[in-house]
Every structure is written in C-alpha cells, then in structure tokens.
C-alpha cells in the first residue's frame, strides 16, 4: 500500500492488521510516536491523519491508503521549529519528553481547528494524553501561547526579576 508520512510517499508491505504505530516505528524507522500503552489509553502514539489527531496504536495501517500522516518530525526540524515547537521549548513543556510528540500533535490538531488560548478548551483537546512529569500546567501554557501567536526567544537570556519557573512567563 501507499502511505504518505510527512509528505514522503512510502510503499509499505505489512500484515493485514498491523497498526500504524508498528509500521511507523518498525518498518519506516519513524520513532517519535511512542508505545506507551498500546491500548489507546495514554496518547503517546498520537499522529495526525489528514490533520486530525489519531491513536497510531489503534489504527490499522491498511485503512490509511492515500491519506496523509504527520508525525512530530513533520512539524519542523531544529533549525526551522514551528510556532508550537517553539512554544513547547520556551515554556519548558517537555520534561522527560516521552508524551511530548503525542501532546504536540493533539495540540496541533486543536490549533488547526481554530483553537484559542482558552485553558478549558485546551484541556478538553488534550484530554486522554497522560503526562507524569510536568503536571500539565506548562503544556497548557505552551499551547495557549502558540494559540495567541506569541513570539519566543529561545536563546539564553540574562537574569531577570520577571523570570519565573512557576508556570511560564
């Protein structure tokens, strides 16, 4: 079958019920979607399918013929970070990083649907994504900042009285 991932078309030969997660990780070597639970419970494997967040661990790859899959590698590279990637970096929204790619793609889907910086709406959009490190506050800060269109300086800054690590600037 043909599977397009981050704009690149792949010929994939897989078992009939192989999950998108297995195909991405094991066949294509795209490892940003994580196998956190393989039961649809944690959100760490989330990718965008034609712009909509989907659990890769529950999606049969064979159902995606002709559709466009986006993983976090497709959002932007280190030298060309997307606004959402910049926001996650600036707001320290990733700690161990294992939930981050799924979180970011759920957030990307939310922003694409015209999501605002309303914190409750962001929480709703990220429901079902489990993070055990940051406590979610910084993640919501980052998504809200990206929704507002904040600009970010990712370089080292001088000590500042206004700096806070308690939920972002």
């Amino acid at each position, binding site marked *: 079958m043909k599977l397009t991932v981050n704009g690149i078309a792949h010929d994939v030969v897989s078992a009939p019920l192989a999950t998108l997660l297995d195909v991405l*990780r094991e066949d294509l*070597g*795209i*490892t*940003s979607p*994580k*196998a*956190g*639970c*393989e*039961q649809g*419970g*944690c959100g*760490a494997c989330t990718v965008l399918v034609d712009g909509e967040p989907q659990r890769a661990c529950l999606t049969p790859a064979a159902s995606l013929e002709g559709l466009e899959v986006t*993983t*976090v*590698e497709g*959002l*932007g*590279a*280190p030298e060309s*970070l997307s606004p959402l*990637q910049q926001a*996650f*970096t600036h707001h*320290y929204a*990733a700690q*161990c*990083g*294992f*939930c*981050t*790619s799924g979180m*970011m793609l759920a957030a990307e889907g939310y922003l694409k649907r015209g999501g605002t910086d309303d914190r409750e709406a962001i929480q709703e959009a990220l429901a079902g994504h*489990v*993070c*055990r*490190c940051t406590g979610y506050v910084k993640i919501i800060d980052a998504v809200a900042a990206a929704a507002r269109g904040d600009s970010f300086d*990712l*370089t*080292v*800054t*001088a*000590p*500042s009285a206004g*700096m806070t690590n308690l939920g972002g600037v």
Partner: protein
Amino acid sequence: MKAVGARLPRYDGIEHVTGRTTYVDDVRVPGTLWAKALRSPLHSATMSGLDVSPAEAMPGVHAVITAADVPLLEYGHLSALGIPADEPLLAKDEVRYKGQPIAIVAAEDEETAMAAVDAIEVDFDERPPLFDIRKAFDADAPKVHPWGNWYPHFEGEMDRRQIRKGSIDEAFDRADVIVQGVYRPAAIEHVPLETQVSLAVPEANGRLTVYSCTQALYFSMGVIAAHLQVPLNKLKVVGGTVGGGFGGKVDTASETMCALLAQKSGRPVKWRWTREEEFLCSSTRAPWHMEIADAVTKDGWILGRKMLTLHDSGAYARFSPYGLTKHSFHHTGAYTIPNLSFDGFVIFTNRVPTTAMRGFGVTSVSFATETHMSRVANVLGLDPYEVRLKNANRIGDTSPNRIVYTDPSTVSVVKALAGGMEVELAPEYAAMTRDPREGDLLPEHLVSQMADPEAH
C-alpha cells in the same frame, strides 16, 4: 553563576519537540529478537516440573533462560555494601509475588515469543498469600521467607532500625496528654509513560552493549556484571535517556535478563514491558503502617514521640532497608521533638517488591506527621498552625539522628501556608523566626536538644 536566575534552554528541549530524542525503544539494531517472560500467575506457591523444552523446540525461538542459566542467581542492589541478597533473578522452586519472572524467551517477533511462553510447562502448589503488612508483622503469620517476615540485616544483624534519643519515659511521665494515631498510606505505581525496556547487543569484540532505561546506570552495571559473573570491562551500558522514572527505574528490572538472552542466542534482544506488566509486575512505592504516640503538654509542646513503623518491602528487600533508614532519620517531620523511641521494620509480604519513589521513605512520614500534628492541635483545642510553629525546627536544633539544623525552613513554610489560607496568627507567632531558640521558646525540655557549638 551565569545560570542562576537566567532562562536557560533545556539541553534536550529541541530534541524532545522535534522527535529526535532516542529512548531505548527507539534504538534500531538489525536482527533484534523480542523477549517475553513467563511470570508467576500466583502470589505465593512452590513450583515444580519447570519444562521449557516445548518453547525451545518452536520455530523462531532462539533462546530460553531459567534460573539454571544464571551464573549468579541471587544478587541484590545493596550487595556491594555487604547486605546479603534475597532475590533470585528468575524464580527457583518458589514464587513469592504475582508477576515474578520464571523464564524468559527470545524469539523472532513478539507473537512467537508469546506463543513460546504459553508452551512452557510448570506446576504450582499454591499457598495462601500474605498481603497485610500488619498481619505479616505478627509472629504467627505465614512466613514469606524461610527466616520469617522481618528483614534481618540492619547494622549488627539487627532486625529493626532503632532510634533512641533523650529520655522517653520521662517525657511520657511529664505529659498532660498522650495523642495516638495510626497511619497507613497505600502503594502507588509510578506509571512512567515509557514502560520498562532494555536492549542487549552482543558485539564482535566479545562485549555486550546494554541499552537501559535505568535511573541508576552504575547500579545496573554492577548488578548485570555480578549476575553474569563477567568483569565490568565486558559490558558497555548506555543510559541517560529515561521516559519517566520517578524512582521506579532505580531497580535493575530487565537489563540482566536481556543480557543473558543476548549471550545465549548471540543476537540482539529487546524486552519492552507491556503497560499491563508495568502496572502488575513493576515495583511500586511501598505501603506503610505507622503508629505514633506523642507525649504533649496542654500548651502544645511535644515532649516525646514513640513510633512503630512497618515498611512493606513486598516479596524481596531491594532498596527497602535504605528507604526505612531515611524514614527513621526524618520521623519527626519538620519538627523538633527531644525525646524519641523509634522502631522500624522492613516487612516481607507477597506483594510486588517496593522501591524508591520521589522522597523515598520520607513522604510516608510527612503524611503521618502532618496528620498527627493536626490531631494534636484538635485534641488540645489549639490552632494547628501555632502548634506547628511552636515545635518547628529552628537553627541549632537536632534531627532524630542528631544532625544539627543550620538551614531549617519550617517556620517560613508554615507562615506562608497560614498566609495562603488567610489565617491570622497571634502576634508572637507572626513574629517568629527560625533563629535559635531563646526565652519562652527554649523551655527546659528543649535545652538538651540544642546543639553544643563547641561540639560541631
């Protein structure tokens, strides 16, 4: 000091947001086999007739290991400190918790490995399991280990961690009221988003490279080398990228078995636990049973504390003696109590072995102490903030293990809490600082508590 107060980017932040961080499960080595474990379906049983030959005969199965394949079967994380090990890498003759590994298979793919595990034959003679830590403490309880349910190897081969300070009998004689409480926080699973995973790769030069999600790389290195009975220079252990640990990845849970399978099969072997295995078989924060009796005066001074702590170690000791030791050092919480009698036991049950989790050994006693402080205030009819401030650690006070406090934060924290709750403190408490005790705040019973500046 350029970093203090500055906004610094995380060293791995850009990698995280671009999907480039390489966790253990992301390492790609051609020809990697999948590992799966036969785990005990019972909490407690004797085991016989273990036969892995049906699994070994299956096409696609490259190696099966059992206790008989492990060069040194029992080695503990604290063995390097001279503390005897009690846990076999793979169960032999007995299982003591549900989920204990009995045999591990390495096969071409996950499905074959699972089928091979199902083909292994073994018989169990089930025993009644023991889960309640308080019942396990009793002399007539069924025994989890041949020697009993109390960990026997504290210094001097004592069966408990014991602290005696001041004169506990005098404190209880002089008390106006004895306030008692029992506190039993439950087990907590760490639930890291990355389940336990490791990958062992045999190298052409005879070494093994082991990729590990461990939080404690050098612990793991020593443990793997000891079980395999190889010198450290035969191992290259790669770690440092952990998808959440919180203490749950301090134990060496999967690396050694992966290494043995890689040795036996000559192939790279990966073992990634399922979420179900992570919940049911991985170590947890311990359940605790804590009994406190405080000798208090009507005006809110705590003269003395008697405390009994039972720490649920689960089936094997691992780091529990260390956790209980920390617990004992902190058993007065953020407060200064001059007369102490503490006895703490590491108790074996048929639960999964317990381990570190964020504040190992200390969060339990913080929960107990803070709840008990409010109970003392309620019994005496006093303000809970003021009882805390009165007994708060001050500069020059000493901890249960006689460490002198030079930078205690109790006073500022309790005042901040009162402020946050919009509680107005009486003027003498609002004005309180952490400076060394004097005047009314240095009553007779605390004189001996003060550190002698000459002695330190």
